[in-house]
């Protein structure tokens, strides 16, 4: 064993050998620490079971790993030509071969049993206390509390300046939204998911819930968060240029807080309805329009309004923007099928569309000097 050549070559595989062992030790010792070495700390019963299943399989893998590679390491250390080891002649051993086929089968059967029960539980969306429709859009989430007349859009609230490095990055960089999904603790929340454009995936790691939102189809899933708290996730399916900037934030609150929140939302809806007929000035609309533009349009058409040639059209000097106002409104309302240009009529209010249209017509070198009022938008809606 102390042969020099043995050490020279033998040590390094040995060192590699130790890495996974160290890692597993590290992972288990700091399972719930913030080092980000393991799955998120579970916030639901199902997520806890997934966590435990993962831990179990990791230990099983480690055990197999050791059983397999100890003989390999012994062979690599001892059965070397440099130590004068003469090769054996065997090349078959039926007993051994049957054994290492049967034993893994048994291990797999045990794992499959646990996993099966969990899969069935995850799929059981019956008897939910609350159903929320989640619609994916490029690149934001729309939440609709079915039966409650609450509907809003949740968009990333990380400022572009932070992304571009002009500003220090905040604590929840890229994992923060303007309006989080609010749900009551201890209640079974059923999500029905769909998408308005491409496939998105709604994912909150702490809930053990990841579900694709497929355009034109309904998928459902559920979670029951144990305790109040804020839980963060992201879109998990590549959905275009804004894929990395499409966070999910869920605010779990007590049942009382949830009821109060619902009342507040309904009051907001009433206030918005009251202001629908109002007439705005160009400056007011431009200011609001800039905000709307930054949340909804900037990913494709860019802050400069120049778009990305070949992929996303420029707004500066564009035929639609510099053309008739109603054509411009129609494009924003109805989108352009087969492209990333969504039909914003379903997502934005009349005021917001009026604002963004006005903004686009009067920004950069565009000087149309006309104003779209909410009433104009209402008139163009079909």
């Amino acid at each position, binding site marked *: 064993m102390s042969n020099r050549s043995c050490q020279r070559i033998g040590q390094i595989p040995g060192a590699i050998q130790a890495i996974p062992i160290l890692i597993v030790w590290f992972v288990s010792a700091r399972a719930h620490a913030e080092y980000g070495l393991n799955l998120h700390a579970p916030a639901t019963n199902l997520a806890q079971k997934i966590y435990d299943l993962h831990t179990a399989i990791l230990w099983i*893998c480690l055990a197999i790993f050791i059983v397999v590679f100890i003989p390999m390491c012994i062979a690599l250390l001892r059965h070397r030509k440099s130590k004068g080891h003469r090769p054996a002649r065997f090349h078959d051993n039926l007993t051994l071969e049957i054994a290492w086929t049967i034993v893994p089968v048994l291990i797999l059967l045990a794992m499959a049993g646990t996993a099966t029960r969990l899969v069935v539980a995850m799929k059981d969306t019956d008897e939910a206390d609350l159903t929320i429709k989640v619609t994916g859009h490029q690149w934001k989430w729309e939440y609709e509390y079915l039966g409650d007349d609450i509907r809003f859009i949740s968009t990333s609230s990380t400022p572009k300046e932070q*992304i571009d490095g002009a500003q220090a990055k905040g604590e929840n960089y890229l994992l923060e939204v303007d309006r989080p999904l609010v749900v009551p603790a201890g209640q079974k929340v059923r999500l029905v998911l769909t998408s308005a454009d*491409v496939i998105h995936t709604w994912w909150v790691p702490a809930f053990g819930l990841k579900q694709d939102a497929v355009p034109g189809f309904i998928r459902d899933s559920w979670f029951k968060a144990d305790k109040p708290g804020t839980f963060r996730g992201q879109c998990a399916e590549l959905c275009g240029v804004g894929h990395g900037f499409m966070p999910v934030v869920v605010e779990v609150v007590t049942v009382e807080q949830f009821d109060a929140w619902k009342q507040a939302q309904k009051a907001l809806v009433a206030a918005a309805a009251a202001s629908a007929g109002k007439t705005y000035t160009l400056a007011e609309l431009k200011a609001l329009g800039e905000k709307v533009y930054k949340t909804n349009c900037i990913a494709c058409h860019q802050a400069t309004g120049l778009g990305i040639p070949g992929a996303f059209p420029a707004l500066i000097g564009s035929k639609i923007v510099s053309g008739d106002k109603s054509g411009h409104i129609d494009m924003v309302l109805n989108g352009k099928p087969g492209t990333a240009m969504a039909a914003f009529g379903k997502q934005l209010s009349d005021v917001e569309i009026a604002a963004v249209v006005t903004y686009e017509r009067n920004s950069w070198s565009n000087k149309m000097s006309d104003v779209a009022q909410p009433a104009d938008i209402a008139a163009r809606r079909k």
Partner: protein
Amino acid sequence: MYTADTAAHHDHAHGAPRGIMRWLTSTNHKDIGTLYLWFSLFMFFFAGALAMLIRAELFQPGLQLFQPAVFNQLTTMHGLIMIFGAIMPSLVGFANWQVPLMIGASDMAFPRLNNWSFWLLPAAGLLLIATFFVPGGAIAGGWTMYPPLYIQGGVAYDMSILAIHILGISSIMGAINIIVTILNLRAPGMTLMKMPLFVWTWLITAFLLVAVMPVLACAITMLLTDRHFGTHFFDAAGGGDAVMFQHLFWFFGHPEVYIMILPAFGIVSTIIPTFARKPLFGYVSMVYAVASIAFLSFIVWAHHMFTTGMPVGGQLFFMYTTMLIAIPTGVKVFNWVATLWRGSITFETPMLFALAFVFLFTIGGFSGLVLSLVPVDIQLQDTYYVVAHFHYVLFSGSAMAIMGGIYYWLPKWTGHMYDETLGKIHFWLTAIAFNITFFPMHFLGLAGMPRRIPDYALQFADFNMISSLGGFLLGASQLLFLYTVIKCVRGGAPAGNKPWDGADTLEWTQTSPPPYHSFVTPPQIKLVRGRSHANAR
């Protein structure tokens, strides 16, 4: 131990032509194999350069170098080119060089078709790389090309569809050629169950190619008609389903994964017995294991789609079939370890790569097992855990087996020994840098970092930086590989017929490099299974 009684005469009806026409019009399996290998090496560096750019952008949070639109092009094209341009062609290059030599055939069954299979690759490669220069840039929807995102793209998307069609034609013809060569051109005495395992793995791989490339062609044709001819295959409004594309794609895609790993198994199963100086343990079970993996590959595809929300019965079926793959894969690993056991082992560069393959591929296999469990997969789907998993099976699996194979057969192909010191340095740099790059990605995935994002939350910063540093080292190490290969091609110590004393396959009975036309008259094969190699040479 294979021995071949070869008639001494060689038919020199047409030797190697001179100049560029030798390569453009070749009907020689060795020349075409060489073309495949150089092509794949070029594409390896091209797609590798894209990976460097990806890692540079991900070096720290925020957008520094590339806008998301460009970043998505980089990840998409990195994947597409590595798979279709680097890994697959290099394995076909091995098949071209080695299959005829290992079964005692004079050439491939259809030499002209063989040349066409190759020369379609540069055509498709040109079309693919050109997409970077068209308006809107290259495709950016991921190498999996999922609609409806793929429907939204510009001209590059059509060019890529047609490029993949051409690659498909090339693969199907190449695969038919390999199947027919193996079935029909074996030398007398070379029965199926006497074939070297490398040949077996390629026979089964070629079968997979012929079976699944047409399904990919079918799926991307539907993409094209959805884009331009108003069909609604993937549009719910017309009664189609975007997820249907995923089913078709992964019906191709999962066997495709094995297309890229089975020949690597073959290479490793050739290298390990050579340097353990002991016959491959469990040859018959190896053959059955490869066949079982190939069979299972047709009924596991939807495990790539557990989060799409299929019915619970579907999830369970695909979970069980996927778990089953662990059995034959385990058998292979056990057999390699048993081959090493009580051997007479030496550690030349090819052996180092093969051993690292067994070790690291097994890690990739374990993460695959973790991913096979639906509940766990739902947490890990589309995260960096998956990125780590498939780089462990594709880089430390396929690519490192390919590098090992290149070091193993370079002396045979060129007639020169490669520089062993440089080879070993290249190996250690690659193995270490690879693990620095990809091991942390397991943690990133577990901690919730989605894949295919140009920017990430702050808690992912440390591991991304480590991963990027490892990535740059990994990239730089491959320049050493290029240098070592070129140095060996240009000269070096003469290799002799058989530089590896433990090698026993038929190619080592030929000169190094082999005559332009080898085995013109089929040799008579005798195989003494289980003969010790201790006293060889």
